[in-house]
Every structure is written in C-alpha cells, then in structure tokens.
C-alpha cells in the first residue's frame, strides 16, 4: 500500500495524497461539508493539480463502491468461507443494554460464549484488541470472531 500523506487545509478540510505505482501523484480533498475533490497533479509542475473531479457525497459513495468497497466485502466473505466454521460479526451495543458500563473482564464473554472480541468501534475511532478492562458504552460496535452459535449467544448478551 502506498504511503498516504495528510495535509490540513484550515477552514476547508483535509487533503490526502499518494503516489501511484505508475508514478502519478493523486490527492483527495475532503471538504468539511462532505464534498470531495479528486485531484491529479501536473507532471510538469508538481505544485499544481490539473485534473480535478468534484464529487458530492453520493458521487463519492458511488465512486468508492466502483473502486473497491465491494472487493472488501468479497474478501471478508472469502475469509469466512476459508476458515471452516468460523465467522465474523459486528454487534452493536444499544443504549440500555446490560453490557453498557461492564468491562470485558467482568462480562467474561469469551469463557461464556467462546467468541473473541477483537476490536471495538466507537464513533469514528477503532479500539483494536481491547483489554479486559475495556468498558462498553452505548453505541459501541464490537467486532467478534467465533462460531455462529457463539456469536448468536454474544448477540444475546450484548444486544439486550
């Protein structure tokens, strides 16, 4: 994967850039409003961009779908099929769930269901490999790996 540089654009948003395998410099300007610009830099003057594509949030979704979001889900399905009997699931912790405020250690989710919670997504951040003292908040999404039966049990423990 090419190295992506992040550049702050005060008052506008943020820009990410990388050089393609073919040697072309490509950037994405992400406006705070959700609009995106896809830019390609001038080969003769690396300071300026020549091709600029203006994308609405919907356009961005369509383009990223075309470029590879589908590949990600295909890859995940492939993983599930390859590892016989093992599945990945995303479990959302709703407000009012018994799990809100309990830590991973207290809940003993792995010993009770045989399922490992490998990551927790909270808002826009992801907590990779959460420790036993990690406490759930409402709205957390637990990424769990285990047998389909275990995952169903975990769904019952976290989801209600």
């Amino acid at each position: 994967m090419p190295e992506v540089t992040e550049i702050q654009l005060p008052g506008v948003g943020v820009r990410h850039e990388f050089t393609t395998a073919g040697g072309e410099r490509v950037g994405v300007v992400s406006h705070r409003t959700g609009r995106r610009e896809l830019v390609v830099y001038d080969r003769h003057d690396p300071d300026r961009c020549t091709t600029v594509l203006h994308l609405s949030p919907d356009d961005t979704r369509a383009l990223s779908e075309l470029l590879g979001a589908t590949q990600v889900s295909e890859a995940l399905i492939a993983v599930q099929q390859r590892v016989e009997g093992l599945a990945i699931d995303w479990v959302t912790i709703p407000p009012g769930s018994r799990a809100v405020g309990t830590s991973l250690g207290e809940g003993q989710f792995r010993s009770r269901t045989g399922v490992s919670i490998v990551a927790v997504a909270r808002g826009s951040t992801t907590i990779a490999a959460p420790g036993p003292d990690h406490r759930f908040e409402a709205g957390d999404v637990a990424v769990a790996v285990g047998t389909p039966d275990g995952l169903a049990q975990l769904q019952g423990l976290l989801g209600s």
Partner: protein
Amino acid sequence: MTAAAGGDPSLAFIEIGAVVLVLSVLARVAARLGITAIPLYLVAGLAVGKGGIAPLDISADFISLTAEIGVLLLLLTLGLEYTADELRHGLRTGVRPGLVDAAANFGPGFGAGLLLGWGTTAAVLLGGVCWVSSSGITSKVLADLDRLGNRETPAVLNLLVIEDLAMAAYLPVVAALVAGRDPGPTAVTVAIALGAVGAILFVALRWGARLSRLLAPASDEALLLGVFGLTLLVGGLAQRVHVSAAIGAFLVGLALSGPVQARAGTLIEPLRDLFAALFFLFFSFQIDAGSLVHVVAPAAALAVVTGAGKLLSGRVAAGPLGVGQRAQLRAGTALIARGEFSIVIASLGAGVSHGDDLGALAAAYVLLTAIAGPLAARYVDRPRPRTAEGQRTA
C-alpha cells in the same frame, strides 16, 4: 432622516425592500461573473448614499444597528471556520510569515495614513485596512480556480488563520485607541482589553468543548437562537470593557467546536449573508460619493504597494514548503484581495478625525483590490504556451 424612526414604517419598508431587491440582483450578477458580491454592494451603497444618483432617506439608528449585527455575524462565522487544532497549528508554523505579512502590508498603510496627515489613530486603522486579506474572497478564488489540491494552498490558508488571530490582538488595541484621548489612560485601556481577550481566548479553547456539548442536543431553532443570543451578549459585554464587540463574536465562534460548530455555521450563514450585505451597503451609503474622487489616487498607489506586499507574504509563506517560483506567485496573488475585514476596520474609525476620508479611501481600496486580486490570481495561472502545447500533443 425620520422615515424609519417615525410612526409610519411603510416608507422605510419600501425603500429598504427595493434596495435589498437590487442587492439580490447584484449577488446574481456577481455569481455569474464568478466574483464576490462585496464590491458590487459597495457601489450600490455609494449610488443610494450622499451625493449618489438615488439618495435614500433611511433612519440612522436602523442603519447603525443593522450594520453592527452584520459585523458581529461576519466575525462569528469567521471564528466558526477554524477548529482549535487549526489555530494551534497555525500559531506553531505561521509566526514568521505572519510578521512579514504585517510588515509588508500594515506598514505601507500606516505610513500612508501619516503622510496624508491623518493622525496616529486613523493611520493605524488604515494600516489594518491594508493588512488583512479577505478570507472570503481568497477561499472563493482557491476553490473556483481548483487550487485546493495545489501544494502552496495550505500555506495560503494558514496565513489567513494567522491574520485572523492577529486581528484578535489588533481590534481591541484599535478600539481602545478610538475610545481613548490621552496616551496614559489609552495604554491602560489597551492593557485591559488585551488581558480580556487573552482570558476569553483561554476560556474559549479550554471550555469550548463543554459549551458545545451543552448546545449540542438543541434543535436547529434553539441552536440558532442560542448562538445568535450568545454572540450578541458576549459582543455587548466585550464592548463594555472596550474590547470591541467584533472580537467577542469572533471568540464565540472559536469556542464552538465539533458537530455544533458545523451546524451553527450552516444555520448562521443565511443570517450572516443578509446582515453582512446590509453592512457593506450601509458602509458606503454613509460615504459622500463626491469625496471618492480625492482618494482614488492614494487608493490605487496603496493597492499597488500592498499588492506587492502580498506577493512577498505569499513567497515567505509558501517558500518553506519547497514549492517553485510560480507556486509562490500563485500564493501571493490569491492573497491580494481585501474585503470584509478591511471594511469592518474602517467602520470602527467612523468617529475619529479624518474618519470620513478613511471610509472613502477604504471603500476605493477594497473595490480595487477585490476586483484586481482575483483577476491577478487567474492571470498568473494561465497555462504557458509551450507547456500547453506539450500537454496537447502528449
């Protein structure tokens, strides 16, 4: 004079309604031409003002209050533009270009004020008029010319942040100078004003997140009223301690962060457009169109000198990014346009000696730079004939 103040407001409604309709047409024309509407609003104000082609008869009270609210909303939305992180980053990297920018643009303005024999206060105000680029026009130019991807662009945007932060110190000083008479008490007022700004800035950056959380659950209506009320309240309190209401509003904008910042920005924007348009209109409405003749020459000279000043600013700001000559030139030309801030500063000087001259000169200067700046920015980026051919054949 008494149309709006008198018992029958119908005449004022008719006059203001007609003028706002004209502004709406001007805004469309500006959008069609791809320029900002500020110069057109100023021209419209001149046309309906003293000595204009169709003088209007609007109450002075109505004008001054509307214009003041316009200033507050302009500064509020400016504060809303930037996150606390961007301000901190700007301060870390932008001190050197910021100082060069101040010297190369405030300096000539201040000198010109003294040369014209206006006295220190009016000269300091003229320096400010020449100093600050229009962040509105500059960001519009960058977006319209598809330069947001360019390598020099972060430097340009950072310089705008620095200038806006510098205003947080400059405006209170000016407010104290305008209010003060003797050097001694003025120094005390300046010290108090700067202390107050420091305190508010500290509170805004420290507890802004809490304030934002407090406002976050509000409906759009409640949030709009809350932010508007808070802006007027803080602005009024700041004015009480001679800090200038504008800075109070700016700091309210800075204090709001996260999703509330974005929502407040979208909600306030239409209100800002309305009041700011009236502010620009009323600013030049109060200028005697005949007095413009005397200020055209100094305004043009200042525009040339400080245009060069901005080229230097762009060079110093973009240079450290390792970009080439052309990119430095692009950065400089993007910064030439002056606009809303210059008019706000000039309006502060309405009451000082030579305040009328300052207003007329500022209007002429903004008209020149706001039109010439975007043109220069476009011109400097035209494809060179040889490169263009090369691309076509490639």
